[in-house]
């Protein structure tokens, strides 16, 4: 985990996020959103959580980005550009960023250097999911099923 790789990934991620937040062409902004999540997955790889990085790539770039592109194409009749920009959002976001930076820089760090890296294996994650986290896992399964059925009911055509 070198600092140069970290800074390069940070520049890539934040530039893609800024492009996704401000680009006017909706399709370009959606692709920049996918690039942002590639950068966040790279952060997870740098931090030693490879499984979470892969899950992020599969879920966000594999499923959510495709869903966004389909929804933009399905709802594109009047605009494919997002015109106008509210400057009050910039002010609020800058204020929140300044407050967070002030809080981070005024806090004593927990540890100067990270502890020695113990590789996290998928077996460990599976053991944790099947022992201590089996109840949240079942709840998430029920939640996903309910969300799937709910979204199908929401977009169903009404019969008259």
């Amino acid at each position, binding site marked *: *985990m070198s*600092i140069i790789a970290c800074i390069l990934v*940070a520049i890539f991620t*934040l530039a893609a*996020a800024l492009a*996704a*937040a401000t680009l006017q062409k*909706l399709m370009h*902004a*959606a692709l920049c*959103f996918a690039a*942002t999540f590639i950068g*966040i997955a790279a*952060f*997870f790889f740098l*931090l030693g*959580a490879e*499984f*979470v990085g892969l899950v992020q790539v599969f*879920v966000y770039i594999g*499923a959510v980005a495709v*869903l*966004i592109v389909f*929804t933009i194409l399905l*709802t594109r*009749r*009047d*605009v494919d550009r*997002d*015109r*106008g*920009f*509210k400057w*009050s*959002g*910039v002010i609020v*976001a*800058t204020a929140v*960023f300044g407050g967070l*930076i002030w809080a*981070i820089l005024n806090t004593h*760090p927990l540890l100067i*250097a*990270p*502890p020695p890296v*113990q590789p*996290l294996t998928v077996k*460990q*994650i599976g053991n*944790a999911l099947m022992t201590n986290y089996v109840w*949240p896992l079942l709840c*998430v399964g029920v*939640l*996903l099923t*309910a*969300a799937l059925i*709910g*979204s199908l009911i*929401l*977009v169903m055509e009404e019969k008259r």
Partner: protein
Amino acid sequence: MTPTLQIFLIISAALFAIGLLAALSRHHAIFILIGIEMMLAAANLNFIAFWRFGPQAPQPVGVMIAIFSIAIAAAEWTVGLAMVIAVYRHFRTTNVDQLNQLKG
């Protein structure tokens, strides 16, 4: 030289601010959802960073929270995009400034 916890906290604060900017200043409903999702990703990055730099627990708690958070975000996307499509069918627009039927 290895990066410290503070670098990751600053990066995720910047990502959170950009997500807030997108959620507050966009007119298109899908991009407001994208801004919310960036804020959620910043929180996930914080969980993973604190797990890496904190004392090592016997079970990877931060990783678990991040995995469950990603799964819940997937459920949120399905319902959110279905609502965008339903609203578009009804109002013929996705611009949130024109969806003011319930405004008092």
